[in-house]
């Protein structure tokens, strides 16, 4: 009884934390993201001035050289600013662009996609063609238009980035929801009189979103790099504000003689993205009760042998989804997930 009480408790917040702690990679990823978040929040007020402080007499200090003070452990850039401080401060700007952009495109794309996939028919067709249009439209043109027609600002930058990425989520969400709408549990919900949106919210979204989350994780990196290339047009981040993408792009010329001005921000992008990917994959598994067991690491001696009536039933083999025939020309649900999509036999 108590064992299963414990397991049931795994859905609670404490349980999730325990699950997280059990997966070393996910814990590390979480720590990385927490650190990034902390930098984003505390960085600008604490290190903002340091990050802007130029010293034209101490430019391009090598990293890890001692005697320059802690702020120069990662070296200094071509204006003699602390790379470390800039890295920390840039986290805030980076996140303030990338997170809204990714979240917006994720939200709009997934809601739209789920709606389109759920209703099928013309709504689906029109949506897919719109996605095609956006995909084949150069997003740079959009950026330039924004620059000319509107005020260049972070909000507009976010809008441009978000619009350009909507199709990715739209297509995935549509494919998944087209498949899910035919599932028996959606039918079951109909027999209670649930409306379409209620079904999408309760049954489609919780299954589609984790997959989209893994897509979003990889997209994060894409958005960060695109952001930097757009700042060259003059929309978005402007000096002395700084983002990782901008640091990477500006330092690009320095790769030969001051590698640290490029490599560290680049690493920041990679590490953050990888952490997000790892965490998204973890969340996908943790959010799926059928997969959750994978996350509990083996703990010897936990099996309560000899205990009387262990009420837990042997979990029967999982229901095998029947090949979907209707509408199967649509891309498979798992299709667009950029991560693993294990649907294995499991106890």
């Amino acid at each position: 009884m108590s064992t299963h009480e414990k397991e049931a408790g795994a859905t609670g917040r404490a349980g999730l934390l325990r699950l997280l702690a059990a997966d070393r990679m996910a814990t590390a990823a979480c720590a990385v993201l927490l650190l990034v978040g902390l930098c984003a929040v505390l960085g600008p007020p604490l290190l903002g001035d340091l990050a802007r402080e130029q010293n034209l007499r101490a430019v391009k200090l090598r990293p890890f050289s001692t005697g320059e003070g802690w702020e120069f452990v990662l070296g200094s850039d071509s204006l003699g600013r602390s790379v470390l401080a800039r890295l920390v401060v840039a986290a805030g700007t980076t996140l303030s662009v990338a997170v809204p952009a990714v979240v917006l495109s994720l939200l709009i794309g997934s809601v739209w996609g789920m709606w389109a996939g759920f209703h099928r028919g013309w709504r689906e067709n029109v949506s897919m063609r719109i996605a095609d249009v956006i995909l084949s439209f150069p997003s740079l043109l959009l950026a330039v238009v924004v620059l000319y027609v509107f005020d260049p600002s972070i909000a507009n930058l976010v809008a441009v980035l978000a619009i350009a990425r909507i199709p990715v989520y739209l297509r995935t969400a549509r494919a998944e929801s087209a498949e899910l709408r035919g599932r028996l549990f959606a039918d079951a919900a109909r027999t209670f009189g649930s409306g379409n949106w209620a079904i999408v919210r309760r049954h489609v979204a919780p299954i589609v979103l984790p997959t989209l989350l893994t897509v979003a994780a990889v997209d994060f990196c894409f958005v960060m790099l695109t952001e930097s290339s757009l700042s060259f047009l003059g929309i978005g981040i402007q000096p002395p504000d700084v983002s990782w993408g901008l640091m990477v792009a500006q330092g690009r010329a320095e790769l030969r003689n001051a590698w640290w001005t490029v490599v560290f921000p680049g690493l920041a992008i990679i590490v953050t993205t990888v952490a997000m990917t790892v965490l998204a994959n973890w969340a996908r598994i943790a959010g799926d009760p059928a997969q959750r067991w994978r996350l509990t690491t083996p703990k010897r001696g936990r099996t309560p042998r000899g205990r009387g009536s262990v009420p837990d039933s042997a979990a029967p083999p999982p229901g095998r989804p029947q090949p979907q025939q209707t509408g199967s020309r649509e891309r498979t649900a798992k299709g667009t997930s950029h991560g693993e999509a294990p649907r294995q036999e499991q106890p």
Partner: protein
Amino acid sequence: GAAADAGTVQIVLPEEPPTLEPCDASLTATGRVVRSNITEPLAERVPETGELEPKLATGWKRTSPTTWRFTLRKGVTFHDGTAFTAKDAAFSIDRTLDSGIECNVDGYVFGDSRITASAVDATTVEVTSKEPDPILPLRLSFVEMVPTSTDADSRVREPVGTGPYRIEKWNQGINLRLAQYGSYWGKAPDYKTALYTWRAEGSVRAAMVSSGEADVAVGLAPADGAGDHAVEYPNNETSYLRMDADKPPLDDIRVRKAINYAIDKKGLVASVFAGLGKPAGQLVPDGVTGYNPDIKSWPHDMKRAKSLIAAARADGVPVDTKITIIGRNGIYPKAAETMEVVQNELREAGLDVKVKMLDVNAWTEYLLRPFPKDAGPTLLQAQHGNQAGDAAFTMEQIYGSKGAQSSYGTPGLDRRIQRAEHAAGRERQARFAEALAYQSKKVVRDAVLAHMKSIIALAPDVSYKPDSASGDEMHLAEIHPAG
């Protein structure tokens, strides 16, 4: 590099010439391939001396205030075998200045001046301008000679010229090969062929020289890592910040002066430009007619800057108004960083400054009249290159109160410019120098930063001495195998 042995010099450019149309030769990308390699003008300016030297004309004479007469070289043939005559010369001038093809050179060197050319005899051309023009031959040195068979109504991509090289093959997007023209009138250059390629990334251009894939790489920045192959040369360009001197607080000369004092030009050149440049006090470099050796770069004096601003503030000048630096990415290496440095210094001096880095076209909106409305007081990051070597090409445009790139002018300055433009010879030099001095003392519309330098990378087996014109024209004939 294995390249030179085969009689080919390989040159890597930052971009492909959009066209080789000779009348667009004032476009850097076109000019540095075309000028004096494929086509030639009547006369050519020597960058070191500033003198005009005969090219396809052997001599010229001012026959009236508005008329010049050019005597043409004999025995010159075009690449198609036809002889170069006065008809061709007159045709070329008309085609450039008076046809529907919107020649870039037209706007660039001639502006509003209307000019007609006619062949007097086979070797004499007479050129008439509406207004007296003392530097007409200099202007004409930008007109490349093409045969009359050239299409007069539309641009040609691959011109026929008289130069030492003719176009052998242009694989668009990939490379451009020039071959020696056997019947060239002058001395045959060393290399049989020249192969141009283009790479947008500076570090790749530098790497190509390092790895022996190219003999000459153009337009490098210090960070591109050309190492031992790097050769620095002053490129005729001067970087400056243009101030909106009619908008508060920039309408107060104390603020403008403060800005000049606040910017540490020496430090900027030493660190951001990596020594590639020379702190400057005026828009034209040495060698240009009108250059004033007495104008020195403003000293870095933060205390003065602060006190000037304090004084202005005391007089009710709204020095707290937000000033926007309009920057242009890539205008010179580390453009954004430069503006960050400036911003930093101006803030220290007590001004509220923000930076906006734009792309070329958006930036051009701020550069040229009519300026965007509601922009507030701006400082425009700009750079000026005087290819022609005469301050006339600078002053009117940039400092005249109606100049296309001018944000502000004074009647006093206008008058001085006018007078200088009509003068010739020494007087011309003196008057322009005076106008420049007046600008820098009384008007202070700019914060001039530095006379810029550029880097060219040369493989060990070629020798070439870049000069101030090398950024805009690169004479293949001046490239020689080393040793």
